[in-house]
């Protein structure tokens, strides 16, 4: 078991990072901090997917002269590029909402906002 964990230590790190992000979202009170937790979770997922495409002693999947294998899988890179753009879009919307909430309520602490409701 421990050996399997050690072999897949990249995946384990992603899981740990994922849970840290989730902890921040639940436990922190400030909306921006909550949002940073979400960004940590996003990073964890991207790291996980990128790690799937790694091959030992591999080179990047760019063909052309002088390129020799084994090549890393190109699919995870394409997926993560899409994922990053999605994450950027979510970030933009969340920050817009936080700006508006701060302008209207004067605070971005979750418990104070709950009292105002």
């Amino acid at each position: 078991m421990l050996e399997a964990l050690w072999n897949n230590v990249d995946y384990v790190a992603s899981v740990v990072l994922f849970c840290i992000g989730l902890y921040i979202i639940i436990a922190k009170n400030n909306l921006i901090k909550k949002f940073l937790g979400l960004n940590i979770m996003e990073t964890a997922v991207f790291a996980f997917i990128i790690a799937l495409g790694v091959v030992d002693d591999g080179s990047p999947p760019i063909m052309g002269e002088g390129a020799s294998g084994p090549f890393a899988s190109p699919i995870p890179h394409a997926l993560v590029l899409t994922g990053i753009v999605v994450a950027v879009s979510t970030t933009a919307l969340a920050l817009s909402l936080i700006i508006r909430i701060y302008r209207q309520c004067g605070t971005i602490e979750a418990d104070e906002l709950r009292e105002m409701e």
Partner: protein
Amino acid sequence: MKKALVAALLIIISIPMLIAVAAMPPHGDADSPVHTHVSARYIEHGEEEAGAENLVTGVLLNYRGLDTAGEVIVIFTALMAAFAVLITHPGRGEESGPTTAALDPEPGTEPESDSKAPPPISPVVSFMVRLLTPFTTLFAIYVILNGHVTPGGGFQGGAILGGMFIALTIVLGEDKVRTLLPRRAAPWMQGAAVFAFVAIGVIGAATTGYFLGYPTDASLHLVRELMMVVIEIGIGLGGAAIFATIFLQMEAE
């Protein structure tokens, strides 16, 4: 107390996750399903099939083109969302169309209070940003145009351009930078990525019978490359315009 409870809960959740990832195919193993199934064909035939030396671009624009089309729509959604959430000046530009008031207050007609002076910026920062602007632009264009040969592409180049735009806004103030996004042209630029994708997709449907199909004939290699470059330019331009607009919109708010 609450925090300890949450931490304990997450540790309990993480145990099955750890067990499961430990049972995944070994990391970096060349015989794992990731490398032997779909990727194997991409690596073997991708260069001639998809027409891009950089296989990541080949996957993005050709094999999984619809994903990338969806992705540019996601970022366009973010722009629409930022507008829908952030615009707050009722009455301004009421009859002259929405984008006017949102983006480009016409000089002269604005109330005094809105044309705030740019905050003082250190001359060193200001000089460096101005100095680097042409080089950054050149680099961004290089990244966009060579996306199918070297690492890079429309999104990366667009992000560089957008970042440059934001730096310029901080240094020069928004009024000067807004002239780069003229009122009439702004929505076309923001939608450039979507339009480029749909245009190329429809051309593909007309010529090859499949949406987003590229000519596979070896003699048409240059046409295929041109189609990819058009999409990359669209993504780069659209991405940069969207990043810049969202930033301007947030700052105006």
